[in-house]
């Protein structure tokens, strides 16, 4: 059964050998000269003028937190919608009660200014 995959094995081995050979040949034969230009950003782009390692405001985390409210809602609403008729009043009331805390979360976020950025 495994014999069917011999071809795949050959390709895998060949791939590894070729990749290693390519890198190895460069390592052996390539000239290595150091000069200042090599430490510059390569070819494209500008040289940096300020350090990129500083703190900046990530507004998107607000969106991410807000998304959780709707995400959880959606996860439960899809299967609920699929069997809505079969669940009857019990299912309706259960979902109604479930949405109340979610709605409160949304109202809280909204009134506290979480949606203004």
């Amino acid at each position, binding site marked *: 059964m495994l014999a069917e995959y011999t071809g795949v094995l050959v390709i895998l081995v060949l791939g590894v050998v070729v990749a290693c050979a390519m890198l190895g040949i460069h390592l052996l034969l390539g000239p290595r000269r150091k000069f200042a230009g090599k430490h510059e950003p390569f070819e494209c782009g500008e040289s940096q003028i300020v350090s990129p390692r500083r703190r900046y405001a990530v507004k998107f985390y607000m969106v991410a937190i807000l998304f959780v409210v709707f995400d959880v809602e959606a996860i439960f609403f899809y299967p609920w919608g699929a*069997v809505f008729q*079969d*669940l*009857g*009043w*019990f*299912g309706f009331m259960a979902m109604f009660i479930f949405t*109340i*805390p979610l709605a*409160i979360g949304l*109202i*809280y976020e909204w*009134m*506290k200014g979480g949606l203004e950025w």
Partner: protein
Amino acid sequence: MIPAPDLNLSVLLPIILVAIGSMTILMGEVLLSRADTVLGREVTESFIGTVLAGTAIFFFALTLWASGVAFAGGGVQVFNPDNPMYQLDPFSSFVTAVLALSALLSCALSITYLSELRINHGEYYALIMLSASGMMLMVAAVDLIAVFLGLELMSIPIYVLAGFDRRKLRSNESALKYFLIGSFASAILLYGMALLYGVSGGTSFEALRAGFDADNPMALVGLGLVVVGFAFKISMVPFHQWTPDVYEGAPSAVTAYMSVTVKVAAFATLIRLLAMAFGPLEASLETIFWVLSALTIVVGNIMAIIQENVKRMLAYSSIAHAGYLMIGLVTGTIEGYSAMIFYLIAYTFMNLGAFGVVVALANRGNDCERIASFAGLARTRPGLAAVMALFMLSLAGIPGTAGFMGKFKIFMAAVNSGDIWLLIIGVLMSVVSVYYYLRIPVLMYMREPEDESHRTEIASGEGAVLVVCALAVLALGLFPNRVPTLLFGDLDVLDWANRSVGMFFGG
């Protein structure tokens, strides 16, 4: 048509009450902060905080009453008979009552402290209520999934609370440390639960008990991982490293809350897990708990000696107390479990009281944290010094206090089940603990005051909490089987503790 399950909502009544309370507070915070005046009073930040703290206290009092009524009624009810996830029984209602009481006291303790720090927001009380509802879910759970849900609902708000003083670096550091280590512990716990599920084919405690095979290495690994997960939460040695840092960095009022309630909830869940799910395994578990308990008692007490910060000292002392409590788990008898429950109640009052004094001394957010700053307190603040001395004596286990009664019951259970060596370690280390506990009364009464940086007047909420804790410590120490109260007559706390765990032994 899918038949509607036959749900028994009264089982979750305490939890529903607390959850409604937290949502009410969130909405109240939003509405009040938009209003200018309410009933002719100007709306200020501390006014909002006080009103919402009152709301939280009201809901906790309701919960306390509801679970008290359920406990008096006795009997076992399940939430959903087809799939028993939560169970209302004497054990869960009693522990829920203890949790509600300690959360109520923590709320009353926090008001002035938070106002001084300028963080008296409604969210604080909403988070306290959310985490309390998680604890209550956890102690009522009879299914691993329900336990995990409760554990996360308990932990996540506490991570936020630890960093509630968000302008302070130390508070942030404490929250981050607690969050990282806590999530790590949750992952370990979940891994263990998954293995247990794989072994027994079910997540309910009943299925675990039926399908558990102690010869299967996978079952033992799963059990071990679950124990490690809980060990992180109740800070057993060697899983205790986070405790001093988190307790020190969090605002003192939060430390008071989490040092008490998390321990009560996690120990109660462990008792239920051991009694209901792993009954047949006690022989192999006993050794694990024996070693953990001995290590926890020794390391907790010895490390507490060298601390110079009150909050760190109390953190190590809480580790040591977790060690004493685990002696009850080692015995595995009804006597041991009921002693644990009694000890947890005693610990609640004395530890809340000790942290309460630290809170009451904090001056405009500068915690009076150095042990040396207690010097001469008896002269400047005689009342506070007296209750602090009482709490320290109780934590050390001096007769006449709740701490002595708790230790006595625990050690008695150890004697009766033959764990003499553990008893010897416990008693010897109690002697060691007297040294660092009594340092504070010695400083307060026998040294001259050195700095006057602490607060000079006490707020009514703090005063009430300290008086309640001090009276409870005395009453539980002097007459544990008939605590006199004005409203309810004499309370037999020892009998309650017995009755709450009796259900695990067919009582």
